[in-house]
């Protein structure tokens, strides 16, 4: 028994130390995840039902858009870290495909210079992101507003149109499992709203209409 005691003690020590570390790590994760609601927006978008125009459109996905992350700074609000930008490539790809004869992705405006196959280049930017939660509004919905700056250039790099678009989405919390899921759904609804605006209004923007009527 005396021989076995040091072995048992040493075995306990080697078992307890990693367990203690694991427990501390687990507690830290729980505490930290309890403080911040972290969300990478995911979702699918339907293709719009609309007549195809004969425009070849390019969309510039610069880092300001694709890496846009909203971080709640206010001490009085719940901590949110929302990766809104990443989904925009999927969104524009899906929405623009049936609207234009061709739609392609570019990393920068310069990449389109002198490209005779492209008619117009859209550079979308997120100017502002806002949200409200049920706790703040006393209604059982999450709401999201996204303000965009849309800039359209020709292949010579000249600015043709520059306008602000807003997107709004809300979703009831009742049928969703978590606040992250509700917030995600509200962002997706806001993007669907943006898609509705683009489908029904893109070619009605006066400068773009004038450009198209002028035979490019």
């Amino acid at each position, binding site marked *: 028994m005396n021989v076995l005691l040091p072995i048992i003690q040493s075995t306990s020590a080697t078992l307890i130390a990693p367990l203690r570390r694991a427990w501390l790590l687990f507690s830290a994760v729980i505490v930290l995840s309890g403080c911040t609601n972290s969300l990478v927006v995911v979702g699918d*978008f*339907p*293709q*719009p*039902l*609309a*007549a195809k125009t004969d425009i070849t459109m390019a969309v510039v996905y610069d880092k300001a858009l694709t890496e846009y992350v909203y971080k709640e700074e206010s001490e009085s609000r719940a901590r949110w870290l929302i990766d809104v930008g990443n989904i925009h490539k999927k969104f524009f790809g899906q929405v623009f495909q049936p609207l234009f004869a061709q739609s392609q992705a570019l990393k920068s405006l310069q990449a389109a210079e002198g490209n005779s196959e492209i008619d117009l280049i859209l550079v979308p930017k997120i100017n502002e992101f806002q949200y409200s939660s049920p706790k703040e509004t006393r*209604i*059982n*919905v999450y709401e999201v507003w996204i303000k965009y700056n849309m800039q359209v250039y020709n292949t010579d790099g000249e600015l043709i149109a520059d306008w602000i678009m807003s997107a709004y989405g*809300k*979703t*009831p919390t*009742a*049928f969703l499992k978590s606040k992250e899921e509700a917030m995600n759904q509200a962002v997706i609804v806001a993007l*669907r*709203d943006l*898609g*509705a*605006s683009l*489908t*029904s209004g893109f070619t009605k923007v006066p400068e773009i209409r004038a450009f198209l009527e002028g035979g490019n």
Partner: protein
Amino acid sequence: MGKLNHHTTQPDSLHLAHHWRSVAVGLLALLASACTTVTIDEHRTSSQRAEIGAEQSVVVLGRRHSSDYETEPNLVDCVGNVLQSGSDGLNVIAERAFLDALYPWFEPRTAPMHVRDLDRYLKHPEIAAAMNDYQVRYIIWIDGNTEKTDSAGSIGCSISVGGAGCFGFGTWENQSDYEASVWDYEKLETQGQISADASGTSYMPAVVIPIPIIARVQNSACKGMGEQLKQFFSSQPQPQQ
């Protein structure tokens, strides 16, 4: 009892235990549902009943344009399920599938607010073709929501070395208020409106374990409105072939 169950692989005692467990769960479910009051009002714009062919469909959609509430998707699904249930069930198009197929023309920003607005939609050949593919005859718009209107009481829970438990009493009242408008897509006119108001009080007594006695207000409003809508259509004789 033993003879009756001789084909089963379970022993009789186990079967009895299952039987009593089922009875207990049933009784508990009965006890655990509080009362709900539902009022249904129907208004038809003409004495003619809503005609619908066996091959035609209805789509149930929720209104989502208001800033201070949102018609719940599960309520819309529930009404659709009631409409398509039974031998006299209608062909119901799922809301999500319809909204995606006709995107973006029935989104909150673009959805027609009046039946005459549908005329404008029919000028788009893509929309008209999609509606024809679905064989849509009626669009049922549901507007409203269910909300908690009042609450009282409190429940306290504590954990100690000896165990954990709760003590107290809580109560809350839910109110549902929905209106369904039936649009005839073929005639481009409103066929009528059905409103459903439901209210109920839920209770939660807690003596060690909290026991929720829930008033299923939204579900009652859904069932009431769905059955009334079904009568709106099912009372109509099928068109002669």
